[in-house]
């Protein structure tokens, strides 16, 4: 598995070919996505640029927490609540 992954990374042509083994770590892409969205947004919204990083990190954490919350809520709905409904 590891050897196969290493070989596919070595054979990867960035920007032309999709990133290898993305099915294993697709969820981690939420972190840079939230960070870059927060950077672009807060660059236009903060009053003082001295507050930029604090506001950016706060918004990044808020986005990730909201996504995790929605994921947990949907998981509970699908795996716990819906199976409790009568089968008929």
């Amino acid at each position, binding site marked *: 598995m590891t050897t196969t992954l290493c070989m596919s990374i070595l054979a990867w042509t960035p920007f032309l070919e999709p990133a290898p083994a993305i099915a294993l770590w697709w969820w981690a892409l939420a972190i840079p996505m939230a960070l*870059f969205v927060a950077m672009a947004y*807060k660059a236009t919204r903060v009053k003082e640029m001295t507050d930029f990083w604090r506001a950016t990190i706060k918004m990044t954490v808020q986005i990730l927490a909201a996504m995790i919350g929605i994921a947990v809520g949907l998981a509970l709905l699908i795996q716990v609540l819906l199976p409790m409904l009568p089968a008929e």
Partner: protein
Amino acid sequence: MSDTPLQPFRASFALLGWLLPGLGQWATGARLRGVFAGIGVLGLLFSGLLVGGVDCVDRNEDPLWFIGQVCAGPLVIAADVANTQLLKSGRAAPLIAAAVPYGAAMNPADVPKISSFKGLAHSNEFGTLLVFLAGLMNLVVLLDASIRPSNRLTRRTADAGTRA
């Protein structure tokens, strides 16, 4: 609610922001804002292209996604051209026969050919989404640049430009 009067819409700054994300803010004098806004938008754009390859920008196959993506600037158009010129033409990677739908009778010569570098599933979904987000965020950034008070004399004042 803003503390300083906003400028009327200035298309020239919006155009600069489309050409290079953050350039509109830079031109108004808010250079630090422009740099960070540019890093945010270009970070999303290049993350998307890295994850999904240039195939995640496709004017013909994903026209609705492309409308949002193209707001990120000419780099997206370049990615679409690269997709057409390198992948779809078979110059970057060999073309292979696409899967025939189950039960469909097709002449082997009529089966469409696709690039072996074509992104599928998660890679294509995330690549497309990240580039689309880059376009939407750049729309926010260039609209901000188009109404931001211009202050080239004191860059610090422009960077501190009061927007509530």
